């Protein structure tokens, strides 16, 4: 035997079909699936590899109904994400996945749906919204609450407009700070929670954003009467293997890459309040 490849560690080349500028530091990449077609659960992530630079976890942000393209929305914050945000159509990135748990949208059938997103956290929730709108009749009232740092940091602007224009969905956007020409909400996204027109006893909530935001969103939802078992959050941890072997993503007993990233809030609530766990 001359070689023992760790098949799960080998990225497959994916050609960049299109790049969309979302904001000054965020790009959405449309990739050709290495195997032609491809399927994922909303909420799952891929490991994206920039040749020689490194590999990082990035949520899939595309419509699960589109199986001929892999979509990722990347915010350039460091070496790898900057390299990924700079790719041009025709170039190739490495891809392996999908990994992790997805949003259990089926649990929301026949119930109200509340989507709470902060910053880049809208990316892993977008497939959920796409899936939900595809079968809109299966759900009760739907509300999306989305917070960004500034109006310039809002993702998927055209799509947000389209979502807002629908009569069967409530979309609320807020920013942390804005210039005088912003006429929308200012303040943290959790402040919008009481305004979401959903029934706390009937709603299933899907939350993704910075950890501190998820912590307070969970607490606020509980205060409004939403059961912790009806809330889902997506955790972020350092990940290097994505298959539960490298140990980096541990969050208490959970390997976030394998047991998450999507968790039932009731399961992680206590851990979320332990500092530096």
């Amino acid at each position, binding site marked *: 035997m001359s070689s*023992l490849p760790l098949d799960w560690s080998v990225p*497959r080349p994916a*050609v960049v079909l299109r790049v969309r500028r979302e904001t000054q530091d965020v790009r959405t990449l449309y990739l050709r699936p290495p195997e032609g077609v491809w399927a994922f659960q909303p909420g799952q992530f891929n490991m994206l590899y920039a*040749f020689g630079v490194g590999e990082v976890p990035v949520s899939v942000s595309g419509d699960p109904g589109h199986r001929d393209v892999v979509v990722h929305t990347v915010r350039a914050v460091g070496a790898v*994400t900057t390299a990924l945000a700079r790719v041009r159509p025709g170039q190739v990135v490495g891809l392996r996945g999908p990994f992790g748990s997805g949003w259990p949208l089926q649990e929301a059938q026949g119930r109200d749906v509340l989507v709470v997103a902060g910053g880049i956290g809208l990316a892993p929730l977008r497939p959920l919204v796409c899936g939900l709108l595809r079968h809109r009749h299966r759900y009760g009232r739907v509300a999306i609450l989305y917070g960004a740092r500034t109006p310039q940091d809002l993702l998927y602007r055209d799509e947000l407009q389209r979502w807002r224009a629908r009569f069967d969905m409530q979309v609320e956007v807020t920013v942390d700070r804005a210039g005088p020409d912003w006429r929308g909400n200012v303040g943290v996204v959790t402040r919008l929670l009481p305004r979401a027109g959903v029934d706390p006893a009937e709603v299933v909530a899907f939350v993704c954003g*910075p950890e*501190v935001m998820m912590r307070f969103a969970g607490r606020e939802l509980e205060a409004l009467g939403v059961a912790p078992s009806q809330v889902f959050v997506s955790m972020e941890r350092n990940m290097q293997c994505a298959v539960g072997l490298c140990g*980096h993503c541990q969050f208490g007993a959970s390997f976030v890459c394998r047991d998450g990233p999507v968790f039932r809030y009731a399961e992680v609530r206590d851990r979320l309040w332990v500092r530096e766990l």
Partner: protein
Amino acid sequence: MSRPPTSDGSTGSPSGYVLPAEGLGELFDALVRRGYTLVGPTVRDGAVVYDRLSSPQDLPVGLTDEQEAGRYRLRARPDRAYFGYTVGPHSWKRFLQPPERVLWRAVRDGDGFRVEAAPEEAVRYAFVGVRACELAALAVQDRVFMGGSHTDPLYRARRADAFVVAVQCGQAGATCFCSSMGTGPRCTGGYDLVLTELLGGEHRFYLEAGSPRGDEVLAELPCRPASPEDRQAADQAVSRAEAQMGRRLETQGVRELLLRNLEHPRWDQVAGRCLSCGNCTLVCPTCFCFAVEDTTDLSGQVAERRARWDSCFTGQFSYLHGGSVRATTRARYRQWLTHKLATWWDQFGSSGCVGCGRCITWCPVGIDLTEEVAAIRGSDGLRSGREASGENP
């Protein structure tokens, strides 16, 4: 005495044999003839480490070790014992999960790249001198690297091929606590051959096989059937080790104890001593975490991915954009200890600590996990003033 089940489920040979001490070389030869690369204890830089062996003379003959928290010293024994010491800073994991390895190489190819699996050295190891706690550690790592949905093929291949020669401990060290962890000192399975070195009277080994492979090798050795006295002497040797056990850890409810004391002031106290050096994780026979590194050659045409041992005591380990999740030593020590003794149960159905004492001996400041657990147990429920502020990442 009924035979315990062995690694491959066979019952091996039903009775023990005796090998004169001079016959140890024949065991080495028999393994080499079968194509095994022999690795085992040998002395380097004043410590017993695991490395390639070519003859029994490479073993730490006539040496023993003195261990205490933060202290390790070799000294001469009055006899010519081959295995008269306990465990040193190395463990067998270094052969199954090498400290550093190339996972793959990729070559630029137009706008894209082509991945080539890295050539992996195919080695069949014979591990000579595996102690009871180490058999337990191998079983723990088996569950990590082969028990889940994704496995490590290198580990799997090397583990399947490895021939395990276990050695019963005839003495225990001051930092040993395998009997608390239920992992020793008696080897009860998971080996191909097990030796007990008998030093009183004729220098000899009491020998049993634990697998058909072990039977085959045993059949080639200049052995004689063991007498009841040989058997009794072997049994007593292990009982002596049991009686010498230097440390104790109360395991009753330890998982729950630690998990309900995540805000105990003892974590602050230990953080005041811990250097966050990561020695404890490097020497631990069950610690498995690794980091992945991507690099390119100077031309930028060939990229490589490497894996190397990592430690939860580094800042990089839990790094997220903006900072480390576990920025303080308090959080890192707590992560390490609660993983070993508590969350490991949830993840792999066993303790992550086998009681080998390495982390105690090799900690530069002598931090002793048995002492840390006892301190928390002694003031169960105490909380330090700090509360989660919600401000951290």
